[in-house]
């Protein structure tokens, strides 16, 4: 069962749950004040949104909530954790992923379909994925900032780096590869009606875990 973590201001929990179903799995809700993940959790997704209104720094306040201790224990035990957009910001702020997400180079919100390059095929999330994925971005603070020499950059925007990420990074994993954060929204690319199904693979990985 894939736990979908929800904070006040989380927006994409329903879409993430639908994507998990589309990938053949079952979603279960996890609330920010819970101190344990739901019984039977095999993988975790932290969906997008504006937890706590993005106040102070995106993800900062959410990253200090009780559920994140449980997510940390799950990750330390090798469990899969996928952070999408605000979820990526939360994971960075929680120290589960390296770096931090900063304001876009455009200093504005950007909602746009993107072609992503899969740079690292050797994580549980990206094994077997095609080399490029069509998935939209939609964020205001999506420029990853960190040390590209030591971080494991898994997904990239390629030469068109609209947000101004260091090393054009779109998705970053921890060294073990079981925690992945990405700014693009795979839950918006799981249905031909939405224009792409390229996001399904990431959810399939969670369901397999």
């Amino acid at each position, binding site marked *: 069962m894939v736990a979908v973590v929800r904070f006040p201001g989380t927006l994409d929990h329903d879409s993430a749950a639908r994507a998990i179903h589309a990938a053949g799995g079952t979603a279960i809700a996890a609330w920010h004040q819970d101190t344990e993940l739901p019984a039977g959790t095999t993988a975790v997704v932290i969906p997008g949104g504006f937890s*706590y209104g993005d*106040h*102070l720094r995106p993800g*900062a306040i959410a990253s200090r909530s009780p559920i994140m201790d449980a997510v940390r224990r799950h990750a330390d035990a090798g469990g899969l954790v996928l952070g999408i957009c605000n979820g990526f910001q939360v994971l960075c702020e929680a120290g589960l992923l390296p770096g931090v997400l900063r304001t876009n180079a455009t200093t504005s919100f950007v909602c746009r379909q993107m072609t992503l390059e899969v740079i690292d095929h050797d994580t549980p999330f990206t094994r077997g994925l095609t080399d490029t994925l069509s998935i939209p971005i939609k964020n205001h603070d999506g420029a990853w900032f960190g040390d590209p020499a030591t971080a494991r950059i898994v997904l990239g925007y390629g030469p068109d780096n609209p947000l101004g990420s260091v090393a054009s990074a779109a998705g970053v994993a921890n060294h073990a590869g079981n925690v992945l954060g990405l700014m693009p929204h795979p839950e918006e690319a799981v249905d031909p009606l939405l224009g792409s199904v390229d996001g399904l693979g990431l959810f399939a990985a969670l369901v397999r875990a």
Partner: protein
Amino acid sequence: MTRVVVTVMPREGVLDPQGQAVQGALGRLGFAGVTDVRLGRRIELELDGPDPRAAAQEMCERLLANALIEDFSIDLED
């Protein structure tokens, strides 16, 4: 070259959602006795020119602060 520090804070009485969110978060983290939090901006400018205070004043009025909802103050460092 003068370093000018502009401080922009939400006006008294104007809603400060950021401050409220931070206050709530500090409470949840177990910090007791936080009775108010207000969040504003600090802008450090390096200015070259004859009257940096007057320049900063005009910058605040035209861009850096929103007089309808924010107050600003200007300090010169040397």
